[in-house]
């Protein structure tokens, strides 16, 4: 019982300190805005530097608009992440099974990450039009790397002695894969997915900037013209909240699936 009490306290503290820090930062920000300190320092009109209270009210007043656009962006992110998961896992498995393929593609996959997504987003819009397709492709492109690399690392993490043991216990290649390598790769794959879901909003926003008529990225861009800074902050808040929710979902799925850790 004592132990549980201790654990309860720690869990509580884990939430308490970030919450306190966040409250302190928000308080400072609010203070800096209401005294006009930031606007003065940057020589700006005060409406360009919204306080947390103004952002919160923008969030509330625009809830319908934000929800509508959040759904558009969320759909792009989810479909892109799923595409990256399917293609990334398939690629990782193929690279794991064929050394030739791994040696041939690994440097290319790494190099592909060096291409800035901002640069290829407009090209993909030219190729795939203004619909949801280029958004899914861009999100998938940005998520593909962490998924593939982590899945591959997981598959290769299997102890060579375990492979010998399986071979000597009459396991076929397929049985070795499903009974040893695939489960061993799961924790790593989930790590890759956590990275993927937090970078997915970046891909979605860039994709929308390259050409779209809805979505949170589009909203941020069009609000620029009207200096609706408070609503832009509110939109960023929604984007972050979506990424946090997704990472929570992945963590939940991981706890359900990887029960042996």
């Amino acid at each position, binding site marked *: 019982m004592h132990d549980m009490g201790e654990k309860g306290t720690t869990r509580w503290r884990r939430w308490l300190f970030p919450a306190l820090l966040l409250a302190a930062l928000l308080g400072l920000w609010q203070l800096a805005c209401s005294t006009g300190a930031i606007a003065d320092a940057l020589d700006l009109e005060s409406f360009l530097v919204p306080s947390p209270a103004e952002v919160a009210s923008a969030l509330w007043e625009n809830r319908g608009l934000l929800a509508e656009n959040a759904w558009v962006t969320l759909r792009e992110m989810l479909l892109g992440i799923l595409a990256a998961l399917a293609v990334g896992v398939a690629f990782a498995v193929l690279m794991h099974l064929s050394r030739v393929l791994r040696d041939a593609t690994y440097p290319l996959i790494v190099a592909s990450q060096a291409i800035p997504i901002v640069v290829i987003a407009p090209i993909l819009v030219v190729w795939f039009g203004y619909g949801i397709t280029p958004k899914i492709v861009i999100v998938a492109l940005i998520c593909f790397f962490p998924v593939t690399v982590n899945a591959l690392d997981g598959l290769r993490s299997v*102890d060579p*002695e*375990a492979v*010998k*043991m*399986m*071979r*000597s*216990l*009459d*396991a*076929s290649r397929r*049985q070795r894969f499903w*009974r*040893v390598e695939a*489960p061993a790769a799961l924790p790593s794959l989930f790590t890759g997915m956590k990275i993927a879901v937090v970078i997915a909003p970046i891909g979605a926003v860039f994709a929308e900037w390259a050409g779209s008529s809805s979505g949170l990225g589009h909203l941020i861009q069009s609000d620029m013209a009207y200096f609706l800074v408070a609503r832009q902050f509110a939109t960023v808040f929604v984007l972050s909240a979506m990424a946090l929710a997704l990472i929570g979902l992945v963590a939940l799925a991981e706890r359900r699936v990887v*029960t*042996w*850790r």
Partner: protein
Amino acid sequence: MRQDTRMEPESQGSRTVEAPPPQNPAAGDVVLHGVGHAYGQLRTLEGIELELPAQGVLGLVGPSGCGKSTLLELICGLREPSTGTVSMGGATAAEERLASCAFMPQRDLLLPWYSAIDNAALALRNQGMGRREAREAAAGLFERFGLSGFQISRPTELSGGMRQRVAFLRTLIAGKPVLALDEPFASLDAITRAEMQEWLAAALRADPRSVVLVSHDVEEALYLSDRVAVLSARPGRVVAELSAPRPRAADRDAAVTDPAFVAAREEALRALRHGSRGS
């Protein structure tokens, strides 16, 4: 120590539960002739001549890095020798050896995503048996091997000794005539190790198989084996071969203090010291 009835495999009384018998016990003899092995330029083993009759136990001891584990893998069919032949029941191809030999790696390597019983039944599942059937076949052996009640435990919930028992059961249940054990108890503390040696001796008395046992512990090898081969430092060569005076005696403490045993141990240690100076 001996009051714990779970220690002794046969002490369960009833002999109704049997490990699947080896498919062909006669196929359990192993002959190594002129076996050498090299990794590129690095010669690891040289001119190994060894013979293991069916259902006998051959111990391999030697200084670290002398190629004991490599030799075990050669015997199992997990590797091919660079020179010479390894024959198991007359078969010399690696695939054939792999088919009649079950390998138990140094660490238990139980798969953490499976329960203890699913780990033990792994070979049966690999051989195409359904999950339920395989569990039933393994369940009876859990009783006999002092593991009853631990069927659905996860490997992480088991003690070191328990894990090694499950790992041995996993090896035995494959039903192969030859077992290759790579330092099976190296990771255990001294007391548990002595208990497990006694347990393994009893298991092999009840269910004899041909066993090749790699150990860094001369006493363990001499107690569990019929014959012990002492290997030299790399490239590993057989520098001495001894007969064990009291192989797998029921009372381990009495066996290892027997003057004949002590003399054999001293002889093995001398050979080991001599061999590890290299040639």
